[in-house]
């Protein structure tokens, strides 16, 4: 921790609770917070008013503040911070807090609370915030004594950012914000009961390498943990892949840790992952899982999941190991450290590892199937094509992508490729529609000169679209690229494939005119429905130095393929059919 010596000298300072909050944030290196004022946080807003160090971004709904903090955190590797008032302010924050818990995003959320003497009386805007958020936080605090406040805030940052990262809530009653108390700086934390394990056990590393050394059909299955661990872990992953020559796949959350341009990259794994990665996961004889958690969207049918493989699992959270899938070698450690140790031991081992030529030939045969191929059209913009063009036209930019949740999210994961970590922000575990727009604003706040694009769907984007006003106010020129098919596309896809084509309430009726909406907010609006004009429209979006809402009218009936259907195994993936430039029977009915 930096600033230790500075802190020691200030150990006796007396401040109000609200001042302690701001001081502690500054001492934690926080430069930006996302929040919304209200009665129970007014003293903190006074303290914000009186200082310059911490920038406050005013949101339009507390959910937006939470997702912005997530976007900020995921794109920087730092802890995101959000601030909300008591009652509705805190309850509106529950969705992003849960989202951060599911995706292991370091986040500290500060909420106001009614004065301590009113707690439990059903006071105005009172909610049991620590009770409500107990199940969706890594840890939470109700601070009843101002003299505990500074310690609690520093501890909250420590817990949020170490071990498996996650959200921590600090609930501060209004009288504690007014009261004067001792400020202590962020000294090295020695927690009584919380001691995350980060160093791998040598014995486990050796067991792992012994198995790896004999692998004939190996695969590395990496996840969001590699990104959370920091850039060194991505480097270690690349180095290990290079040394071993193994193919690499990744979860949705792990995209970017391994470069998509590398020939060892197989694409994403899972329900809408690549044909080659899912087949390789099924047929492999050794699986090295790094910082992933065998989520049900990844494994498909559990009893048919990679039946013939020895599995090595690196995870910082011991509860993730053997939770869904039994593994042979558990390694509880920080991903980066474990990968570095694996590489060291691998390099020292005797003998030559088996030739992987036959395995790569098999993988190439799967690649030949071209699982992501789709029938393009001269008259309609295919959503896949739109993402391909967006990717191609942003190659020379410093680009960050966020998404909402649904078909567009999967197409973005399939057709936008990442060579660096921290460039891809998406709601994986919780699957929160409405995540992408505020997350993009959070990313832009952290990277003011970057090109930040929210790849959105017409349904998702409406869940948090009031944050366009926030983007305008704070001059955060995010680009909202809506793949508008007038459907909740993923819901419609499931209804088509599994619910007898009963399209119950999945049509986006009464859609707003997105261009007029953009203009109403002071953003720039673009509409495009012609594949021939798409490139120019995308360039117009990129070159507009303010927030842009892009209404990209795409083929309405397109489905997301390939796909592992419900209860199926990895090698039972279904591929989309190339049917040519027309809409099928079902599609006609939809239009």
């Amino acid at each position, binding site marked *: 921790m930096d600033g230790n010596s500075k802190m020691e000298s200030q150990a006796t300072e007396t401040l109000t609770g609200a001042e302690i909050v701001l001081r502690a944030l500054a001492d934690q290196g926080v430069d930006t917070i996302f929040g919304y004022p209200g009665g129970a946080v007014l003293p903190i807003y006074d303290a914000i008013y009186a200082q310059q160090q911490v920038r406050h971004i005013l949101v339009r709904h507390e959910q937006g503040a939470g997702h912005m903090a997530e976007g900020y955190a995921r794109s920087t590797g730092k802890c995101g911070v959000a601030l909300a008032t008591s009652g509705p302010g805190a309850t509106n924050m529950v969705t992003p807090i849960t989202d951060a818990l599911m995706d292991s995003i370091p986040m500290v959320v500060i909420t106001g609370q009614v004065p301590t003497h009113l707690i439990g009386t059903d006071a105005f805007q009172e909610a049991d915030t620590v009770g409500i958020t107990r199940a969706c936080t890594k840890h939470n605090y109700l601070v009843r004594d101002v003299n505990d406040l500074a310690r609690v805030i520093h501890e909250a940052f420590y*817990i949020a950012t170490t071990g498996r990262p996650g959200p921590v809530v600090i609930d501060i009653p209004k009288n504690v914000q007014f009261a004067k108390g001792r400020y202590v700086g962020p000294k090295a934390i020695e927690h009584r009961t919380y001691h995350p394990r980060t160093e791998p056990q040598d014995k486990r590393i050796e067991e792992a390498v012994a198995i790896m050394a004999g692998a004939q059909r190996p695969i590395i299955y990496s996840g969001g943990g590699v990104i959370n661990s920091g850039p060194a872990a991505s480097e270690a992953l690349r180095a290990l892949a290079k040394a071993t020559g193994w193919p690499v796949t990744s979860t949705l959350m792990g995209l970017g840790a391994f470069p998509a341009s590398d020939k060892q990259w197989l694409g994403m794994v899972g329900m809408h992952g690549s044909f080659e990665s899912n087949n390789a996961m099924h047929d492999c004889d050794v699986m090295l899982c790094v910082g992933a958690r065998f989520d049900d969207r990844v494994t498909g049918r559990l009893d048919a999941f990679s039946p013939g493989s020895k599995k090595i699992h690196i995870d910082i*959270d011991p509860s993730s190991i*053997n939770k869904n899938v039994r593994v042979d070698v558990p390694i509880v450690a920080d991903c980066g450290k474990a990968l570095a140790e694996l590489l060291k031991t691998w390099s020292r081992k005797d003998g030559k590892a088996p030739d992987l030529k036959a395995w790569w030939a098999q993988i190439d045969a799967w690649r030949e199937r071209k699982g992501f191929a789709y029938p393009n059209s001269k008259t309609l913009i295919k959503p896949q094509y739109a993402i391909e063009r967006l990717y191609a036209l942003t190659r020379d930019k410093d680009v960050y992508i966020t998404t909402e949740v649904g078909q567009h999210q999967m197409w973005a994961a399939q057709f936008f490729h990442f060579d660096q970590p921290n460039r891809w922000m998406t709601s994986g575990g919780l699957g929160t529609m409405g995540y992408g727009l505020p997350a993009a604003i959070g990313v832009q706040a952290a990277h003011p000169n970057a090109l930040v694009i929210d790849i959105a769907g017409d349904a998702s984007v409406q869940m948090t679209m009031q944050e366009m006003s926030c983007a305008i106010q704070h001059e955060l020129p995010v680009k909202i690229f809506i793949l508008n098919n007038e459907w909740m596309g993923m819901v419609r896809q499931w209804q088509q494939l599994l619910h007898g084509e009963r399209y119950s309430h999945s049509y986006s009726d009464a859609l707003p005119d997105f261009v007029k909406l953009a203009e109403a907010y002071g953003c720039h609006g673009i509409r495009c429905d012609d594949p021939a004009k798409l490139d120019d429209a995308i360039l117009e979006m990129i070159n507009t130095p303010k927030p842009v809402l892009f209404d990209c009218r795409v083929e309405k009936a397109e*489905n997301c*393929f390939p796909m592992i259907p419900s209860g199926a195994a990895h090698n039972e993936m*279904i591929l989309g059919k190339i049917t040519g430039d027309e809409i*099928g029977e079902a599609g006609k009915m939809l239009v």
Partner: protein
Amino acid sequence: MSRAPRARLSPKNGREDPASAYDMTPSTELIERRTLACIVDNEPGVLARVVGLFAARGYNIESLTVAEIDRNAHQSRITIVTSGTNHVLEQIEQQLLRLVPVAKVIDVTNSTGGIERELALVKVAGTGEKRVESLRISEIFRAHVIDTTNESFIFELTGASQKIDQFVELMRPLGLVEVSRTGVLSIQRGKEKAG
């Protein structure tokens, strides 16, 4: 428009899957019973965290006891009797350890020398032969009489849960009125501190 043939959406794996994105197969593994002792930091809400974890993840609680065990160290001991498949029981331990104020979790059932005890207060009302019989049985069980009227006893009894179950069953025909039990407490034999 690319459409999947529907037949392939119900894989031929010998069971009828409902149309769902989730695997809906119930587990058929053997259910075991286990006693776990958690040493926790005695901070506000810690019991709610532990109980909430069990509720949220669908784990069973058959009995639960909690009390402070070391005031200076701020520690409480929570003993939980739970049940589940071996896999679930393993997860319970790991999930408990994820809670920030949990210092350690001891698997009392599977550790050598784990002792489990419960205390019960049993009220029995009756006269005549039944009253005499209840007193006689209480002596066999080494229960103490802690309150008496002309028509009732309150027995205090400690032992393994099965012993208390058995005592309660014997008292039922003799005028059992009500029972109060602490739930299971646990400790390890020998001179070592647990964990």
